[in-house]
């Protein structure tokens, strides 16, 4: 693998950039692999990378029906944080956070992980109770997290309307300094390049059309480029997981919904942190390019259309202008949608399935991007060892039958 560095860049400039190597090969599928990862998004590529790097399993294919990182990896608002309420979630996301912190160096690809901090605003008394509960839990779980009052919020984000005049005045926030944003495409490409250099075959434009199952055990996949054998198959297909499960003959407790996002035109630096509000319902950060990157809510219906309904965008911008009245004259450049697979308890599924050797990693809902390194890391361990990693174990499909949900909705109840 060509190593990237400032020095290398100068060298390439002198040769007019004619000697850059491919970042990954375009291989012909083999007949059989030790492990097949279905889905070449961030999570799938990270899984392949860690399988090769940490477990020495390099006879691996990542099968992607379109282009690498073309699903939710390319469509999210890139927020990375780990201040989750429940122990199980917090442990998994914090595991990811620690990997984020050294990721660019590990994969020699600058994913531009910017630890500019994330604010989760509270606008009601119940919001503040929930924030205190979460922050207290975070601290005892070893996650950096603090409660700010309205003045503290105003100091961090002077341009936000923290006055009492707001319809829902800001009462305070939780603040995670280590949280931030990253460059989404680079995460996929960096993992792809890393996995490829360790021998993983990245098969793009290759669509899995079915699973080969023998005596209840997966032995490979059918694809539009022929059958490919494998002892172990990990399915990491986000919004399409329900469709993949159906191919394998079982159902999942998932619904795929449109999740929309939008960006403004590029602006000079104006917002230095990530601001999220569940109550007025919008979140915002500014990309390095200058765009305000704004997240909207999930549309209520099932949808695979990579677009959602316009009122969702309206409500989101109402929330943004409520928090930042000065952005009223800023202009929205582009909106788009991803397909998020949501679980009833707003937590992912990392699990064995009724088919032996077939594992699923899905259900990340709106939390997928931030988990990418952690998800890939523990899923690779699970595939390599044939048993679920201890951080993944609570996220089994079984929980929907025993009732042992990890309800991240929990923090948002109704108030009297």
């Amino acid at each position, binding site marked *: 693998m060509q190593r990237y*560095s400032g020095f290398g860049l100068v060298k390439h400039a002198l040769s007019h950039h004619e000697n850059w190597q*491919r970042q990954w090969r375009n291989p012909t599928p083999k007949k059989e692999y030790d492990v097949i990862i279905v889905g070449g998004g961030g999570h799938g590529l990270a899984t392949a990378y860690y399988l090769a790097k940490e477990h020495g399993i390099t006879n691996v294919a990542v099968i992607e029906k379109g282009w690498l990182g073309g699903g939710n990896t390319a469509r999210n608002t890139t927020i990375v944080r780990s201040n989750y309420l429940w122990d199980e979630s917090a442990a998994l996301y914090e595991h990811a956070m620690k990997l984020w912190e050294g990721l660019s160096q590990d994969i020699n*690809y*600058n994913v531009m992980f910017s630890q500019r901090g994330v604010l989760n605003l509270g606008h009601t008394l119940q919001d503040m109770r929930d924030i205190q509960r*979460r922050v207290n839990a975070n601290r005892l779980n070893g996650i950096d997290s603090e409660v700010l009052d309205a003045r503290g919020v105003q100091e961090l984000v002077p341009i936000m309307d923290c006055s009492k005049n707001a319809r829902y005045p800001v009462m305070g926030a939780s603040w995670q300094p280590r949280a931030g944003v990253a460059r989404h495409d680079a995460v996929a490409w960096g993992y792809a390049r890393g996995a490829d250099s360790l021998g993983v075959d990245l098969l793009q434009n290759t669509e899995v059309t079915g699973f080969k199952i023998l005596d209840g055990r997966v032995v490979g996949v059918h694809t539009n480029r022929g059958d490919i054998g494998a002892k172990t198959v990990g399915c990491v297909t986000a919004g399409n997981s329900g469709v993949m499960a159906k191919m394998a003959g079982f159902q999942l407790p998932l619904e795929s919904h449109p999740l929309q996002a939008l960006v403004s035109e590029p602006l000079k630096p104006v917002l230095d942190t990530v601001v999220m509000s569940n109550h007025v319902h919008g979140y915002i950060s500014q990309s390095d390019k200058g765009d305000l990157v704004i997240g909207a809510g999930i549309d209520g219906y099932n949808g695979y259309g990579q677009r959602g309904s316009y009122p969702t965008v309206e409500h989101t911008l109402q929330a943004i202008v409520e928090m930042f009245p000065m952005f*009223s004259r800023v202009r929205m450049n582009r909106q788009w949608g991803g397909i998020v697979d949501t679980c009833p308890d707003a937590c992912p599924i990392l699990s064995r399935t009724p088919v032996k050797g077939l594992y699923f990693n899905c259900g990340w809902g709106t939390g997928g991007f931030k988990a990418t390194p952690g998800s890939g890391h523990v899923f690779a361990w699970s595939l390599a060892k044939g048993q679920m990693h201890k951080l993944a174990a609570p996220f089994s499909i079984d929980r929907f039958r025993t009732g042992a949900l990890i309800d991240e909705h929990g923090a948002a109840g109704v108030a009297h």
Partner: protein
Amino acid sequence: MSQSSSQPNRLAQGGRVDRTRKLTFTFNGKRYTGHPGDTLASALLANGVDVVNRSFKYSRPRGIVAAGAEEPNAVVQLGSSEAAQVPNVRATQQALYDGLEARSTNGWPNVQRDLMGSVGKLGGSFMPPGFYYKTFMAPASMWMTYEKYIRKSAGLGRSPVESDPDIYDHMNQHCDVLVIGAGPAGLSAALAAAYSGARVILCDEQEAMGGSLLDSRETLDGDTATRWVDAAIDELASLDNVTLLARTTANGYHDHNFVTLHERRTEHLADVAPRVDGRRQSRSRLHRVRAAQVVLATGAHERPLVYGNNDVPGNLLAGAVSTYIRRYGVAPGQKLVLSTSNDHGYRAALDWQEAGREVVAIADARDNPDGELVEQARAAGIRIITGSAVIEAKGDKRVSGARVAQIDIDGFRVAGKAEELACDTIASSGGYSPVIHLSSHTGTRPVWRDDILGFVPGDVTGMTPAGGAHGVYALDAVLEDGVAAGNRAAEAGGFPAASVNLPRASAHRESPAVALYQVPHEKPTLRAPKQFVDLQNDVTAAGIDVATREGFESIEHVKRYTAMGFGTDQGKLGNINGMAIAARCLGQTIPETGTTVFRPNYTPVTFGAIVGRHCRELFDPERYTALHEWHVEHGAEFEDVGQWKRPWYFPRTVNGKKESMHEAVARECLAVRQGVGILDASTLGKIDIQGPDAREFLGRVYTNKWAKLAPGRVRYGLMCKDDGMLMDDGTTSCLGDNHFLMTTTTGGAAGVLEWLEIWHQTEWPELEVYFNSVTDHWATMTVTGPEARKLLAEITDIDLDKEAFKFMDWKEGNVAGVPARVFRISFTGELAYEINVQANYAMHVWKTLFAHGEKYDLTPYGTETMHVLRAEKGLIIVGQDTDGSVTPEDLNMYWAIGYDKPFPWIGKRALSRPDTRRVDRKQLVGLRPHDPKVVLEEGAQIVFDPEQSIPMTMVGHVTSSYYSPILDSGFALAVVKGGHHRMGETVYLPMVDGKVHAAEIVSTVFYDPKGERQHV
């Protein structure tokens, strides 16, 4: 032709500007003049302003390239005051007004002498695509510092830092036919649809309707095309089934023919909306259009050719040159070289020459062009160099020459020696790209057509393309196509097709265009002078080449790796060229390479317009009870509960000092415990339930039993979801055997009503029962405290005797002369009466209570006191003490669970799942801090072993915690693992500040455990 001295490039005649009036404006602080009818771009060109900006990545000087929405360079900061700042305005779409102030968005210290420019020149070669991904990685700790500087050098304009002085609004529109674009196709489509009788909306993004006809060389009925445009618009305006929306851009095309139109109502007048007759008007208006049918008449954008240094100011689109001359009376230079792959480009040369300027040469990529326009150029004596193209522009801040050479398109090489022609302007035309952005928004894939060298819209139900939008370019054909589209759309809605008297347009003989995108250079792409594809994002042909070499083979990868098409112009000029270059690098055809999906918006729209009037006080409804005004007058502090404004507490001012919340709440609590208090409880949800099966229904949706509740009695009930988790609680009263009044939590009101309906409508339609919300009909006043009976007795005819009117009874009678239902239920643990009257009379009753309550020191209290009092009694708040993972069993409310009810009520089955049977579930308990002065933090986490290291094993958290004035100590409710079996044990609460509180697990009832006080 002579020219005005102040506007060196303004022609003496021609165009649609009013030369009799002058408008003054400033650009980068310098004063200029223009005329009504100008855009900022045409006025800048008239004044000979070449450099309008610096480029994003390389800081290269940039000038105006286009005349419309596709302009990538002339993106300026507008605004004469801080609050009126608008970032990133396209000068080509900004009408000039007197006093306009604009600045370049990049360039330091200014656009003329930009220091970054030299960095860009040197650094340009060190900044290939993916530059950032390959650098700034060491040391890891430095990234945040690197990023700070990267961010500073990025971005275009700046956000204002003051609130917007303007307002915006929405208009919901419905029509049979929406025609987007008022060029020849759109006008004729609108006429046809209008004559058919359909409701028609015609919108156009430009300052004037007419589209390409506004600067056309063609005649209609032997007269100028604009004459027909004016007549057509007059005709449409006279029809009452037609709505004309000028300055209105269709920016988003959503599902089922929902289209958003952005109407700029005042941006052509000033940077802050002027008042009309003293009244505010919206700066812009967003029309939310539901159209039965859409006619897409959006025309086409011209593609530039991609050659070396094609970004130097003075390089323009050929069509833009014509537009500036014919529409604005501006010739943006003196000596023109035209490089074209088609006949249409020739119009620029002809217009240029007719404007009295010199056409140095036309480089035509075709070997034997012979169309009518070509002949005209020959006849006019213009030098035509066939089989050639401009391969490189010369110059720095303005074009100084063009290198023209014979080219071999198929071999992608320069075939002869280049000739350098002195000129100051290079116009280029690579053909047209239909404007398919809107149809792409719907998710349909565009379709490539080799015959027109462009993508046309894919199929969209209810959408008909017309004219240039699907590759029909000849004017006579466009007009007919428009009529056909208008009729097709109208007929789809059941209207009869109509005939339109179309004007005569002459047909032209054209020679076929040749497919040319990137022009070859003597040097290979990577070594040639920069050939720009996406000017705004500084994406070059070499960048695309490098991306494909690095394995980025999907067009989406190429786009993302190079940032092509991610600018504010969304690649209107560059995307097809970029795709063609990527296709060539990959050895594929363009359709094999694919296209990218365009997303809304077509052109950027201010947040304000999208928000409309849903901001400030109208951001979200404030719901008021019938007593709201009294609360305001009596100084209440309010709490937001859902959309309701509820009094939180009523601070008194004593000796000029306003009470703190703590003081007010302590006073209110003691008033209720020792005297009498009153709460406005009107926000509780109230549902009237009638029908012979009402009782059966209650038994199915509540966990407890309802079979025997007699008329006149009230019962508390718990409601679960079928996963066994508590969703709401409240009391329900039996009004008659077939008649109940259910109350819900304030936040749960709408949800519970829908919950009842969904079960009734989908599962048990056979049950005869009706549910109706009466939340707003009744006002509810809770009079509570030991003195409540005495007070109420003064103004009611109801027998309040404790035997006649028991706890959990309700009675009817008059209170303060108003018919009332009074419920003896208590959320405070004290004697309590909930008085319900029709809301119109609530204020009278409330005031009467206060008139009589003075002697009892009747004390109004708010939600905070309510919370303290109910918590002292161990009464839960759903959503505070529960969180969607709590069962009635977890709350120790076995008394409210009818395990043996005949119907398997909602939530029952789930209680016997393995996880709900666990003995170490988190269970609701009371906590008494060892130190009574301590008020535990709500949300504090609980551990059994405070000595353990982090991460600690947490076993629960505090859900409610207050200081109790009556007990003079802190107390709390909490959930603790296995808590019901841990009474008397000590738990620990490690706090953020390092303190660790100890507390004893106790009963949830802290006050009056036997419940005697409410039974008095």
